[in-house]
């Protein structure tokens, strides 16, 4: 492999900057962004469990953060991110079977995942508020 160009020197395809925006592209990007964001959510769940095991006093800090406006906003965003990643993840599992890959079908399912991400946190909020 002596003299072979390193991976940085090889020509790469011009991609993001010249592509017309389309929803399937957005769905793929949002899947990554929400996946990375859910890394933070997983850390939050672990902190919640560990704080509960530590006792009431360490837990009080978690309670304070979760009850504050930024904690509530964070949980709202986490539910939205999880809903998107879930819906789009199912979409990809369907893609893996070979189904739903035509541009029209992929566009429709991408919009469905985006709408589900908007609807899910509102639905959960409504369930908690009006569901008894």
């Amino acid at each position: 492999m002596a003299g072979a160009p390193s991976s940085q020197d090889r020509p790469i395809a011009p991609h993001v900057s010249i592509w017309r925006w389309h929803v399937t592209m957005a769905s793929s990007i949002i899947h990554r962004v929400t996946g990375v964001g859910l890394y933070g959510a997983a850390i939050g769940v672990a902190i919640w469990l560990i704080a509960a095991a530590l006792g009431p006093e360490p837990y009080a800090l978690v309670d304070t953060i979760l009850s504050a406006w930024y904690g509530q906003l964070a949980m709202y965003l986490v539910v939205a991110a999880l809903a998107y990643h879930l819906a789009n993840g199912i979409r990809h599992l369907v893609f893996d079977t070979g189904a739903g890959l035509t541009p029209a079908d992929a566009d429709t399912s991408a919009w469905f995942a985006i709408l589900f991400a908007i609807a899910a946190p509102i639905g959960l909020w409504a369930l908690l508020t009006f569901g008894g």
Partner: protein
Amino acid sequence: MSNSERSMRTPLGRVRAHGASGEGTGHFIAQRVTAIALVLLAPWFVVSVALSVRDASYLASIDWIADPVNAVGVILLVAIGLYHMSIGMQEVIVDYILKPSTKMILLFLNAAFPLVLAVGAIFAVLLVNFGV
């Protein structure tokens, strides 16, 4: 995906990690198997916690974690979720970080951190259930 003669991939790049161990597809399959488990576990966790621990108080959290079904479910969620998360983040690191030393450090952290977090969170669940 395309292995046709018009592919831009080098012959070496095409065969790497597709050896006798089958390791090349290991992460691909694991990502999907864990995804199927999370399709069930993640919505269950969000809805169950939201309905039972709505005020995020210490006692409500302890009550939820101390239920055997919840304890088993959340241990599964943490173990499978953090594994899924680690595979996904590894893909992101490999895609975007070109500098070998930075990439190596991030891949190490991405392997170690979710493991430490998972052990801590699972130990916390056990402590709440069986601790003093």
